[in-house]
């Protein structure tokens, strides 16, 4: 297929008809390896990408290997305490200099010819250097920094586009929702030890949709719903009947679903619920009183009693339920996506609440929780379903003609697809405002 034909197919891959309330995405967007390859350049090559949380690197020399935009990078706190994102390539032949997924290092030594770098990326030693000529300049041969690195409230992002807008602007309206999460503890959050590392044999955008899809919850997740009934916890009202129900596009591909459907389980941000033991009532009342005093009663109510899934396009999700979880996705092939999840907890938390937080971390989310495995299964089956050429278009039109933005509707998915389409067509195709 010529490049021109591929470009045409991409141009025609979304039907967005506001008057008819019709929004459809072509199957090839989820199945064509050529489109996947182009996404690495046009989407991941230009966005801000989540790399990690500052508290993962507590002391100088701490590092984590991460994979963003098809590149292996070292997320590292240097001896000078500065957090950097370095390309994991020896300047000599390109061999990765860091081979451990996580740890603490004094230096990174290439296994091939022992060129050695300090933890800020500076080339410190080259064996037998006399054979190099006068143009050989160790100063210019350090590990390459990813061109832009910025952080917001501990969340570190990197971009390969030197011209990308500043991170706070890029986060657009999603910033407010990250604040609802980060405002929970006065002391600030830290990442708990342990990582959920799993995958889905599905296109990354199916996960993007699913992570902010509240329409499916009471249907696909009967397992969790029935479990809550069995232990006597009421699952809250749904869709248009709910007190709080937002499903919004937040600009730049970001989105949110916010609801109180599952808030009856309890939230360690400061509201007691049926999934928590009775003894937790008193300490959670203290948590809430502190929150009320610090941010005001109205904002505290929003923070403490509302569940939210926030998408920071394209690779970060904050799933703020009983206790907040960070999900980072790494697309590896058109039909295969790696997933990592970490848990957030207040620094210096009361030990009983910390134990409760850990005990409840894996009850819903995570690869053996009562919720996420069904998402993995249904998305893998969907990916198989989309192999049928006759299954041409998927539908994301819920709520569009009603001009509403409920958590059970799909504006937050349309927003992502419109943003994706604009970037993939290099601006050739225009879309209406997010509705």
């Amino acid at each position: 297929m010529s490049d021109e034909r591929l470009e045409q197919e991409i141009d025609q891959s979304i039907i967005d008809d506001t008057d008819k309330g019709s929004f459809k995405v072509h199957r090839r967007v989820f199945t064509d390896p050529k489109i996947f390859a182009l996404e690495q350049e046009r989407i991941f090559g230009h966005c801000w990408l989540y790399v990690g949380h500052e508290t993962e690197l507590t002391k100088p020399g701490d590092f984590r290997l991460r994979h963003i935009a098809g590149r292996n990078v070292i997320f590292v706190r240097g001896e000078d305490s500065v957090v950097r994102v370095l390309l994991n390539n020896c300047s000599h032949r390109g061999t990765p200099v860091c081979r451990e997924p996580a740890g603490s290092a004094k230096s990174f030594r290439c296994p091939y010819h022992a060129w050695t770098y300090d933890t800020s990326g500076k080339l410190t030693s080259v064996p037998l250097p006399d054979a190099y000529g006068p143009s050989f300049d160790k100063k210019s041969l350090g590990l390459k920094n990813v061109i832009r690195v910025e952080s917001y409230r501990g969340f570190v992002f990197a971009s390969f586009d030197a011209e990308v807008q500043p991170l706070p602007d890029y986060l657009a309206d999603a910033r407010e929702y990250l604040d609802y999460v980060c405002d929970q503890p006065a002391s600030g959050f830290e990442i708990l030890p342990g990582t959920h590392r799993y995958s889905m044999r599905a296109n990354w955008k199916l996960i993007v949709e699913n992570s902010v899809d509240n329409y499916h919850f009471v249907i696909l997740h009967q397992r969790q719903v029935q479990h809550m009934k069995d232990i006597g916890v009421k699952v809250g009202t749904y869709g248009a009947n709910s007190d709080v129900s937002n499903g919004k596009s937040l600009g730049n591909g970001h989105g949110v679903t916010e609801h109180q459907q599952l808030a009856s389980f309890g939230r360690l941000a400061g509201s007691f619920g049926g999934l928590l033991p009775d003894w937790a009532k008193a300490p959670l009342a203290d948590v809430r009183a502190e929150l009320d005093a610090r941010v005001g009663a109205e904002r505290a109510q929003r923070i403490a009693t509302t569940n939210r899934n926030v998408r920071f396009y394209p690779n970060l999700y904050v799933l703020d339920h009983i206790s907040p979880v960070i999900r980072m996705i790494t697309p590896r092939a058109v039909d295969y996506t790696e997933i990592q999840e970490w848990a957030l907890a207040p620094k210096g938390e009361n030990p009983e609440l910390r134990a409760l937080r850990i005990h409840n971390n894996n009850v819903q989310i995570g690869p053996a929780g009562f919720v996420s495995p069904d998402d993995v299964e249904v998305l893998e089956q969907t990916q198989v379903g989309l192999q049928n050429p006759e299954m041409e278009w998927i539908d994301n039109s819920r709520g569009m003609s009603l001009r509403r933005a409920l958590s059970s509707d799909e504006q937050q998915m349309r927003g992502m697809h419109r943003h994706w389409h604009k970037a993939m067509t290099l601006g050739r195709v225009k879309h209406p405002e997010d509705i």
Partner: protein
Amino acid sequence: MVENSQRCGRDITVQEIEQFFYKEAALLDEWRLKDWLGILTEDVRSEVPALDRPKTESKNSIHVIGDNLARVSARVTQLLDGTILAETPPSHTRRLITNVRIVEVNGDDLEVAANFAVYRYQHEKQEVFVGRYENLLVLRGGEIKIRRRRAVLDMLALRPHGKITIIV
């Protein structure tokens, strides 16, 4: 490592513990999950540590699974009532349990190590879970029960498995 036969309320042999594990594996492979719950103590802990923290206690680190009896019973209910999409219809599993070693005997408590491979087949896909069990077994009324089971997986990521929906 202790002798194969050790006094702990009564004589117990490695062969007897192996037979216990084989019977347990049969209960799980045959989906007789309610009977399987019967060999757990009321204060049981059933755990799968995070794959990057195989040695960390469940109170200090997030876990893939960290079940008490209530939660493991809920898991069994869900497996049997058809609400887990990935286990409907039930997957075919085969558990191989080997390298059984009595690590320590303390009264009626037995620390026993074993290796496992669990093969799972569903929708023409095969998944293999490989690792070791750290078991705390206890003699109750002459019967062996499981008081603590840590299934420490050797894989560094659940890839391409994507999930654990069976009892490992």
